[in-house]
């Protein structure tokens, strides 16, 4: 597969993610930040984001499983998740988080649970896309380095 095709695929993937509303302009910023000096930036950030998010999602699941929910803690986690998702430009996750936060402020457990599921759903669909994206990027980079060599 040629480099062009890979690039094209990556582009199509990213654009489709934009169209689906998974990503927003912030992701463009991220892409712009990646240059020759730090080639793996986007990948790094995405990995960071994924690790972070998964940890927080597990924490949230645990917290919400308990009989008495500590909404303050939940709120803190959701805020974190919102912050990181907006930094990455994960729009859908961010929007869900905003909703989640609202339920949390209302101490609405059912809302929280359903919204947690929503966030999870959004996150997992995003993650799978991200994984594909990262694979593509790896291949492109591999191609690049091959060419350079």
């Amino acid at each position, binding site marked *: 597969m040629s480099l062009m095709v890979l690039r094209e695929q990556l582009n199509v993937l990213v654009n489709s993610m934009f169209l689906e509303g998974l990503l*927003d302009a912030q992701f463009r910023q991220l892409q712009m*930040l990646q240059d020759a000096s730090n080639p793996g*930036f986007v990948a*790094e950030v995405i990995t*960071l984001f994924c690790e*972070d998010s998964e940890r927080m999602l597990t924490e949230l699941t645990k917290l919400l499983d308990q009989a008495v929910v500590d909404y303050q803690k939940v709120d803190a986690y959701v*805020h974190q998740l919102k*912050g990181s998702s907006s*930094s990455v430009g994960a729009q859908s996750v961010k929007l869900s988080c905003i909703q989640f936060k609202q339920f949390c402020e209302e101490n609405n457990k059912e809302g929280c649970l359903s919204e947690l599921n929503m966030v999870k759903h959004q996150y997992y669909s995003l993650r799978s896309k991200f994984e594909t994206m990262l694979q593509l990027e790896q291949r492109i980079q591999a191609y690049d380095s091959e060419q350079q060599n």
Partner: protein
Amino acid sequence: MAVGGKRRWWWERRAAVVAGVTIAVSVWVGSHCYFRRENMAKAEEALVSMCEERARMIQDQFAVSVNHVHALAILISTFYYQKQPPALDQETFAYYTAKTAFERPLLNGVAYAERIIHSQREIFETRQGWTIMTMKREPSPIQDEYAPVIYSQETVSYIEAIDMMSGEEDRENILRARATGKAVLTKPFRLLESNHLGVVLTFPVYRSGLPEDATVEQLVEATAGYLGGAFDVESLVENLLRQLAGNQEITINVYDITNASEPLIMYGPQIPEGYMPLSHVSMLDFGDPFRKHQMHCRYREKPPLPLSAITTPFGIFVIIMLGGYIVFAAKNHYDNVKEDCRKMEELKVQAEAADVAKSQFLATVSHEIRTPMNGVLGMLDMLLDTDLNLTQKDYAQTAQVCGKALISLINEVLDRAKIEAGKLEIEAVPFDLRSILDDVISLFSSKSREKGIELAVFVSDKVPEVVTGDPGRFRQIITNLVGNSVKFTERGHIFVQVLLADNSDLGADGKVYSGLNGLSQSEKVQIMSDCTFDTLSGFEAADTRNNWENFKLLLSDEMFLPEVSTFDKEPDIVTLIVSVEDTGIGIPLRAQDRVFTPFMQADSSTSRNYGGTGIGLSITKCLVELMGGQINFTSRPNVGSTFTFTAVFKRCNKDAIADTKRTLSEALPTGFKGMKAFIVDGKPVRNAVTRYHLKRLGIAVEVANTVKMMLNSLTRQSSNFRAGRQPYIILIEKDSWYTGMDVYLHNQLLLLKQNDCVLELPKVILLVTCEYDKMSTGSLVDTVIIKPLRASTVAACLQQVLGMEKQQKKELSNGPTNLRNLLAGKNILVVDDNKVNLRVAASALKKYGARVECAERGKDALLLLQLPHKFDACFMDVQMPEMDGFEATRQIRLMESKANEQISNGGASREGEDSMIVEWHLPILAMTADVIQATYEECLKCGMDGYVSKPFEEQQLFQAVAKFLVSKPSSDS
């Protein structure tokens, strides 16, 4: 609640009605009773008077009769007893009494009975020729004494010879009469013959020679006889009363009440009749002290109620009811009005709430729209970067233009909403007014060139170079006004003029002028000369203030009073008058009063022809008012409009000016100082504008109306030019140019040079308004400047023409480069608990050349910031666990203030290279996701210097950072 209220209201109303009716009825009843009682009192009064009258009358009549009987007694004693033989006999007596009967109306007859002792009986009987009879007409039994009637009146002749002592009442009467010597009465009894109720009056007749104070025995002894008369009370009283008025109305009873417990009726019906409740009792005195009599009067019928006793209360009742109804109706009306008023109030509150809600909604919605629109525009940008064929590119570009227009509209709406919600705040930063105007002009230069309209800016020399205010908003106002003018102007000019308010009183006149829109035609015609106007382009303008007449005054003013402003006493406040004049289609008269109303355009066709929403001017007005100014305009249809506004700025102190010049304005090249230029331009206003720009570059200017005049003055002043070592520049307006002029001018100039009038050939620069003009110029012109003029473009042109070296030409200010300048080589600490955010922020800052260190917790940040440290700035997340950004900042500031104290106390404790830093103060900027909520004050309160949104926006980042960091041009590496 409404139902309950209504119910209660209904009950209240009901109660009020009942109370009103009750009052009316009770008043009616009360007054009726009053009238009734009054009536009774009156009736009683009448009764009393009638009764008394009757009583007196009967009494008088009675007394008269008694008196007469008395007289008869005297008669008898005189003529019967004192004459011998007696001069009186039955015949005489009967005759006399019959004749004097009218004197005794109450007595139906009188008779005289002589006192006869038993011993004299026989003598008496024989003398009289009859025997003494008893009442029963029998010969009298033997008694001690007899009282036979000897004389009698005709009417009672039947009692002749009857012994009066034989009757019970008569006997008693006789005994009492002779004992008292007065007239006495019997109790009433049925009289003989008539069978009427009556009383008998008995009067004693004494023999003469009775002493005055005779005892009872003497009286009895002296008694000669008895005179008696029967009062037929019943018929007599009746006769008497018949004569009186009102006889029919009352009934009268007369009683003998000698025995009080058992009154004996004398007159009137046995059983009292008539109207019982009202009666009157009068005492009667018939002269007999032993007997007492009473008269009872009462009405035969109940006294009739007068009509007024019914009608008057009824009238009052009606009046009260009417009055009550009026009050009731008024109250009802009042209630209704109050209710309506309350409803209105409610509606008003609702409406106001709706208005606020609308503004908020607008703000929210526009904000929400902006986000996806940015996506759309970004994608279009990217799309345009890809390989597109021409049609596609055209489509994409159109879409982008539309999108941009939409964004700007949304921004306007957002502005408008913000202003309405009172959330718009005016900044106060130093800025260079002239460069902002230049920027605005350059923004519209392409359009003005296309249309071939003259676009010019003139700023009075007195306006300070740097003022403190809100440059963004000022720019927005100017852009709006100029944008409008450009949109609506097809020919002529647009002229932006900035004056200091106190060096011309024209500003004050503005209000007067605006009232005269389109009226002062005749005045303006006079200003015309050669069918052109003394305005910038020669077209007529709506407002005469910008024509040469006024402008000249202004300029001369400035020339003769140069730079007084350097004195200290100049005021802190700078009020500027900015006018934007165009020669466009103008505003129709009928639309002029709603120009500043949002979404109002002159008419609907305007938006079809020219586009736009009509929100711009209303925002402009709001902004102007926020900046403490006023805006008004003068406009004449098909002539043009002039918008004038005042803006209040603060004057900057000198240091700030120097500072600002360095950081904010791109400095104009200074290499032209001392040069001279000649402007050839027939239009004074226009050449004043050109002069203004050249002056800003430090070029001295001379003016000539035509090329010939210019050449003449060149020749004349040739001696001066020998001294002048600077190259001479000639700027010629397109108007003064004609084909072939270039050759002519060139030759002339060559000639001058040969004559040593000039040292070297002056550079000729042509000023044109549109691209098209550029083509038609000759080849011998050094360069052509397409207007609008800006100091920087002029400078660039001159540099090019004069071949001057590019003096440290800086790149024009665009965001990233400037950010790079600012941030390059800076040590920046980023604190955020979110790894992802941290990473992204760090690399974004790194991209601008900053050296970034990261901390994940507030405590770590504190450790890193232990003094002394190397950081130039710190970006701090606000919301962090354990120690949030605000707390961390407070601690950092605490640390710093301690250190600063030490410095000031311990003198130069920090030696060496940093001695010029007087105090520690690390710029700390908050990073926050929601910029709207995080108000500036909140950050300031805990010692932060500002905030940036997260994720970073370039422009905002730059603005925030620019305040605190000084760019280090040297550290570009």
